[in-house]
């Protein structure tokens, strides 16, 4: 694969929803390329389509029109099971409210993506344990989410995003539900992971967080603009 080929390539992506009698046009021709190893932030006002864009990149949602290539592969041609496979192998989601399964321990939560691969239970646990160690949760593997603090839960969620060794981690306001000091630690973790080569896209409301990312994207009027528009 040539170094120039982008990991994610969106061309003229539109997305509109029907709300009652009217169509709401959220994305109006998004052009975006994300390359391996990038750490990018994506800002935008509420309702600007940040989450929609992330869901499209995460293959949870289909654009109304436009093209989407992942590693050069036309994603929009893929069948639902193939999309599930891509989500499982290539994409790691991190959500604002963590979205851990309350009845499972940290270890089982992290191992969950491997449940949908041909991985033995033993191997699943081994890898989950290893990743939990990497995000600093090695001593909390048997805790359930309600026995963990917000920051700890987000670390577990990040571990879950990483366990399948994805090409890109998509984080939707990962620090939004956390104290600023804890948010700081989570951001440090993302920097650290990025330093190890993980591609990360962070959606955020916080200009400070946006600014510390090498690449800053802003979504406005349904299109993605470059870093010069990040408010100072």
């Amino acid at each position, binding site marked *: 694969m040539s170094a120039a080929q982008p990991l994610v390539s969106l061309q003229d992506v539109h997305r509109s929803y029907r709300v009652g009698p009217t169509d709401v046009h959220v994305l109006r021709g998004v052009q975006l390329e994300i390359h391996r190893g990038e750490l990018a932030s994506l800002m935008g006002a509420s309702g600007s389509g940040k989450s929609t864009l992330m869901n499209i990149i995460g293959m949870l*949602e289909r654009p109304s029109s436009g093209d989407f290539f992942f590693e050069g592969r036309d994603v929009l041609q893929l069948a639902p099971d193939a999309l599930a496979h891509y989500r499982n192998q290539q994409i790691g989601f991190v959500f604002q409210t963590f979205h851990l399964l309350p009845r499972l321990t940290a270890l089982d939560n992290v191992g969950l*993506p491997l449940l949908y691969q041909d991985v033995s239970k033993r191997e699943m646990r081994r890898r989950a344990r290893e990743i939990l160690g990497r995000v600093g949760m090695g001593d909390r593997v048997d805790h359930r989410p309600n026995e963990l603090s917000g920051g700890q839960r987000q670390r577990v969620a990040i571990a879950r995003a990483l366990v399948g060794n994805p090409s890109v981690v998509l984080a939707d306001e990962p620090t939004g539900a956390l104290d600023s000091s804890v948010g700081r630690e989570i951001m440090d973790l993302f920097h650290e992971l990025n330093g190890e080569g993980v591609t990360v896209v962070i959606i955020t409301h916080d200009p400070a967080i946006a600014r510390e990312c090498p690449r800053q994207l802003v979504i406005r009027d349904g299109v993605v603009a470059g870093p010069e528009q990040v408010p100072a």
Partner: protein
Amino acid sequence: MLLGEASRNIVATKQRSLLALLGIVIGTASVIAMLNVGSIMHNAVLEQFRAMGTNVINIRQRYATDEDDPARNQLDLGLARALGPALPQLIQVAPFDSASAQLRAGAETQNVRLTGATEALQGLLRVRLAAGRWVSELDGVELQGVVGSEVASNYAAQTNQPLEVGDRVGLDGYTMTVAGILEPYPRGGGVSPISPNRTIFLPIKALQRFDADNQLEGILARVHPQADHQELARTIETWVEERAPGLPVEVNSAEQLLANMEQQSRMFTIMLGAIGSIALIVGGVGIMNIMLVSVTERRKEIGIRLAIGARNADIRRQFLVEAVMLCLLGGVIGAALGTGVAIAFAHFTGNPFVAAPMAVLLGVSVSTLTGIAFGYYPALQASRLDPIIALRSE
């Protein structure tokens, strides 16, 4: 992992799960009880005929003819003696008559049934002697008695000494010599109106002392194994009508009785089966309901799973496994309950409990099928959720 998770989810909603299970439990229990009760009844019926065999018929007079009519025909010894030679389908013919009397035992008495017998009756009833001999043609009108096991043991209890062959005992106003003592006879006699355990067998002519008329109680006959019982019954009726016009006889065949009993038990089985099926359907709807609730409640979980790469089929399988596990749990409880009911039934009807060999297997597979049938729709609903909407729900 899949099973572990499913059981965790069931345990997490214990109360609700148990309530939803009730229908499955009742349904499976009915199915299992039905099969076991059927098997117990079947066995009981067979047991009744085990002693005598099923190829036995009983010919008896349907009602008494007018005694004042000198020309009347009745079921008597002459007729019985002629029957055997006339109909080759009858292997053995044993006319018998009965009466009752008081057997004296020391200061006490017991009521006994007297049966007037010929030599053939022993082979027909298949009674076995514990001591002594059976009645003989040569006894004539002598009171030589063969005593049933219960009569003998009652006598022994009343006099504190066992009854022995050669003993002379008081029977109403007469003295009877004990010619033989019988071994205990298996319960139930099929078509036989005779309960050997509670009977003293006397030579059929000697019985006339206790029962003056010539009318027989009945004629037992063993039928050739290949004979058609229904046809034979008609043949006998025709034969009797020719020989003794106006004599009302009826022929009870063991095989026919057996068929009737089987039919009855089949009806019973069908009824219980219907109840079981209805309960299983109601139970299945209960399972469907609880699974739909579960899918709604766990939309977010489904969204998370879809986001991290679960295929629709994975989600479907997860909820299907849960429904089947729930039903299987109900099936196991129901199987235990149904077996319990069958054991109780056996106990109260005095029959030995005989487990129907396929009952538990069938019950469990029926409940599993119910789980699949009624769990499929909720599972399909779950797998078709839009991950975005599912993730947003609380």
